[in-house]
């Protein structure tokens, strides 16, 4: 069961890294990457918890394993939505900064109507 300890600590560190990246880096795409790292750290923790629950001939508790599959799909759709939103924001304003007023700094919106 040493893998529980090793990968559990790995999961915690990855989650911390993701948090740091998502907060510190001002580039939205890097924030999205940070969010994905954070998410995968949390998912990995699900896997560790599942592994600890190995019983009845299963290599792991199937419930947290199934939850992770749902979680990965949700995280991917979140990433897709965020990336599309970011690209559209960049195309519309010429900037990808999240600062207040950055939207107004860039080229004024082209107002499709």
């Amino acid at each position, binding site marked *: 069961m*040493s*893998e529980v300890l*090793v*990968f*559990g600590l*790995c999961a*915690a560190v*990855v989650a*911390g*890294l*993701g*948090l740091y990246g998502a*907060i*510190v*880096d*001002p*580039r939205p*795409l*890097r924030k999205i*990457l*940070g969010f*994905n*790292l954070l998410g*995968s750290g949390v*998912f990995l923790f699900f896997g*560790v*918890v*599942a*592994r*600890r*629950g*190995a*019983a*009845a*001939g*299963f*290599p*792991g508790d*199937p*419930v947290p*394993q*199934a939850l*992770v*599959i*749902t979680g*990965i*799909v*949700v995280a991917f*759709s979140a990433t*897709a*939505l965020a990336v599309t*939103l*970011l*690209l*559209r924001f*960049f195309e519309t304003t010429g900037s*990808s*900064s999240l600062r207040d007023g950055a939207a107004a700094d860039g080229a004024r919106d082209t107002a*499709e*109507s």
Partner: protein
Amino acid sequence: MTIVPALDLFVAGVVLVVAVWTVAVRNTSSAVVGFVAYGLLLALVWVRLGAPDVALTEAAIGSGLTGALLIGAAARLRAGESTVAAERPGVPVRLLIAALATVVAAAIAGVLLSLPDPAPTLAPEATANAGATGLGNPITNVLMAFRAMDTMLEKVVLLLAVLGIWSLSPDAAWGGRPHLPHRAEPDAALEFLARVLTPVGVVLGIAVLWVSADHPGGAFQGATILAAMWLLVLMAGLGEVPDIGRRRLRLALVVGPAVFLTIGLGGLVVSGAFLSYPQGFAKPLILAIEFAMILTVATTLGLLVAGPPVAGPPAAGSAAAGSPARRAAP
């Protein structure tokens, strides 16, 4: 110390190094490449944790599709990157954030050490009740029976993501078709790959679903393979994304949750509980839902990568377009 724990340590170390690199590297495209590598290594970790189903999902979606999405975005955002990167907070703030993130990570790690032993688990319950569905894969049982509600609602999340992405199109493009942003130029090699690989991939995707009743696999993993094949065909220029107004596309996007919901409501009438399956019919019904779902999920995943429609629908007169885009409102 045997070789296996040492291997675990090695894999965990490499995962961490790549993760650090992903956060620290200056260039975003490099960071994305790092993230893809990280995802693949993570799949290895999942296998070590006894979760091949998750390993498949992680490799396919967490690494593959996410990577495809991010790498294209990184290229398109390169122009404005340096000015935004300059907004990075100063060293004291960064140190503060690093310290706080460390505390959070340490707290999570500390909890790991404090978890009860033996661990609480639902594996015995899942085994004891597997007979009710007739499926041998416990994870499929959890997803399709015990916690079917979550799976059904998650399809709703996927549909919402597609709608959200479409709603970001310019007004004039509504009803038109998405255009794959990173489409290669006409290219013999890619076209060849698309022609050779697609049939294999389609068979493989459906097989992954089919075996999921008793073996690792499932609708998501299968759908990801199908979506990848579709994207490959699109990138090779062998096909086009259909107009978003196409009735058939809309139906493909809702058929998964709709069938799920219908069979669920049928359970309410026939066997007395929403999302329950009548004795003896569980397996065929679950497979029916999964087949509807694989269509929906594959279409959804492809469309999530393809982005919002960019060009307007073909004019009503142009017969060559062949697809009546506005059939949605006859």
